């Protein structure tokens, strides 16, 4: 499956969409701090992997797909939900990589430069995410090809 970048999506995006995600993400940062102060860093740390941005992204994606279909006179609710579901599959793969990010920071942060550890862990998060996504795509492709051959 080929990757593509659609910059026009940024032109079409409303500033409220980014503001909503920024506000919700910021609120989770504050909540993590408050819980860490009250119950300790082990409890507060859970919120570093809270699904803060994903709900807004999935909802906006569903609405965007729905609007697109409605513009050409079609009912796009089902299509919108399916696309949001595909987005959620991606988030589940990103979550595995998020665990790897956390493990790297946990092990390396006490004895190394904080900036380098955070930068390195973010790069590794991206690399692991892409590797999982690519492996899944190849497996799906291979499964579909075998299924088609069996049906012939």
């Amino acid at each position, binding site marked *: 499956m080929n990757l593509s970048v659609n910059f026009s999506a940024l032109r079409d995006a409303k500033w409220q969409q980014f503001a909503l*995600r920024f506000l919700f993400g910021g609120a989770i940062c504050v909540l993590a701090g408050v819980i860490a102060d009250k119950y300790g860093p*082990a409890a507060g740390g*859970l919120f*570093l*992997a809270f699904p803060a*941005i*994903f709900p807004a992204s999935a909802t906006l994606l569903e609405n965007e797909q729905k609007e697109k279909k409605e513009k050409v006179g079609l009912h796009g609710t089902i299509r919108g939900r399916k696309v949001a579901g595909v987005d959620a599959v*991606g988030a589940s793969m*990103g979550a595995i990589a998020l665990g790897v990010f956390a493990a790297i920071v946990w092990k390396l942060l*006490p004895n190394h430069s904080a900036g380098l550890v955070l930068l390195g862990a973010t790069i590794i998060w991206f690399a692991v995410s892409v590797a999982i996504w690519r492996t899944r795509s190849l497996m799906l492709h291979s499964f579909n090809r075998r299924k088609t051959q069996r049906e012939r």
Partner: protein
Amino acid sequence: MCAFAAIGDVLKPKSFAGLFGAAPSVALATLYLTISSKGKIYAATETRSMIAGAIVFFVYATFASWLLMKRNASSLVVTVSLMPVWLVISFGLWFLLLR
């Protein structure tokens, strides 16, 4: 946070863009503030719990994708109603293993 969100918005296919829904954006912002105020050891302790949070995020997103694709449920309803599930499982793991 907005940078990761913007990257997710412009990429296709959406399964790839979805990776950015689990980007460490909140973690980076929170860890930066924690390291500045409380030091690296305190922040490292937080990231140990973050591993448990990430495992629960995986369960959350997998269940959400199933509900969206197979049950045709609304994104807003699914993602918001599953948040208490994330909270309960995460705090359960914290209570049993990390406290």
